[in-house]
């Protein structure tokens, strides 16, 4: 690992073809990109992530910034790839795979079956809640929660203004709050009794 080296030098080494530098960059954004693509319900997020990393290698000479900027930049590539993939899917619609078939397919080769089952159950529960969101609202939530991006970085990735991202985020949170039966932060004191009477944790919570 090259964690003790300044990030710009890691990028410079990667440009020169240093394998260790590339491995460090991949560790920085690998899980981030796959997680974001997975949250966008892509059928093969690992394959699409591979294309994203290839594009990252081809365009590394254009990048200039720090570690946070690098994460945002790679997520921009992933988002653009996602948009292209969805546009291509609209032009050539395919038959969706039934959820039962997906559930029978192990997502990771080194995961234990029970762990995989729990993960799948949690994913199903989350997906049910997130199904209320629009595509853009879901993208904003995933970029903020899974991608760890700020509002400004989300705006840059999605090609929108910060105000638009704020609006999308607000509506997404409101939709989720109604879906979950949670209290509004503005009227939290008034609805305290109702909040306590409603389940505050998803059913997939292991501690429940």
């Amino acid at each position, binding site marked *: 690992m090259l964690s003790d080296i300044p990030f710009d030098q890691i990028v410079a080494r990667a440009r020169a073809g240093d394998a260790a530098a590339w491995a460090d960059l991949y560790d920085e954004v690998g899980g981030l990109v796959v997680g974001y693509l997975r949250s966008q319900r892509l059928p093969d997020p690992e394959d699409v992530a591979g294309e994203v990393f290839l594009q990252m290698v081809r365009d590394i000479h254009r990048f200039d910034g720090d570690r946070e900027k690098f994460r945002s930049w790679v997520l921009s590539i992933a988002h653009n790839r996602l948009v292209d993939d969805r546009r291509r899917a609209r032009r050539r619609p395919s038959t969706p795979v039934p959820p039962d078939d997906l559930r029978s397919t192990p997502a990771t080769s080194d995961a234990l079956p029970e762990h995989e089952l729990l993960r799948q159950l949690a994913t199903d529960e989350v997906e049910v809640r*997130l199904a209320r969101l629009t595509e853009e609202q879901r993208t904003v939530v995933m970029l903020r929660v899974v991608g760890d991006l700020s509002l400004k970085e989300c705006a840059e990735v999605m090609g929108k203004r910060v105000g638009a991202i704020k609006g999308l985020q607000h509506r997404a949170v409101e939709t989720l709050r109604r879906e979950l039966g*949670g*209290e509004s932060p503005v009227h939290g004191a008034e609805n305290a009794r109702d909040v306590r009477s409603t389940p505050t944790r998803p059913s997939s919570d292991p501690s429940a």
Partner: protein
Amino acid sequence: MTPHDPRTLTSTMDTTPRSEPMATPPTASARSLVSEIDPTTAAFLATVRDTYRTPLPSDVTSSHLRMILAEAAVSPAQPALRDWARRARRIAAVGAVKIALTATAAAAAAGTGLAATGSLPDAAQTVVAGIAEQVGLTFPVPAADTPGDRTDAEGDPQPGIGEGGLPGLLDSGADEGDLPGEAGDAPAFERDADGRPITPAQDGRETAEDRRNAGNASGTERGEDRADERPAAPAPASRPDTAGDTSGDAPAADGSAEGTPADEQPEAPAPEPAAPAGGAAPDEAGDDDAPGTAGEQRDATDD
């Protein structure tokens, strides 16, 4: 503190949601999400994050790394070269367009200047003048400059080859409507039927130039000229004093009223053509009845 405890997401959003060390503190925009989230929603979002941000399997990681290193080995510095070449081509294209636009603008400006001065060839000048006329500009038309077809601004025919073979042959020296002293008053180009030059005194007409040569501005000079131009007009009882124009010159020798038309004085002879400026008055010349006076010349011409 469980993963779905609301405080988990709040603390995560305030500090860092990742397991990796955070390079920068959380931004205000990141905290804005927390401020509008109720605990239930915050717990759900923590679950969302834990669901999708799972560690990657080793086979996926190794596959990705192999792809990355293979791609990096193939094209480490080539993209920069490709970009440089692309940029150079773009600059060249933009430069060519700029040069073409500049050349076109220069040609248009030069053509407009030549057309405004009438320096273009006749065909091109005609075309440009026609186009300019439609936009309210007046450019010289080559047809108006052709000898024989030449007209002045009022449409009167101008002397040219088509009228007499040589410029000025038909110039009478006192065309109707001309003002005294204009170019059309020049009498030296007239010739008789035999081709001999006719002086103003020989053809019996007196022009302003003659009188200027003879007397160099008498007090009646300007009035006489006007009378020559308008012979049928009645003589004014009194004309504005024009002495102001010639206050320093000699007064009329015959003592006639200033501004009296010369036609009302038939015995007044024409002055000598070569009379020096400020010389004898017209009356004196007429008394001498010298050869070459208007009366003799008129008789000779009648014969």
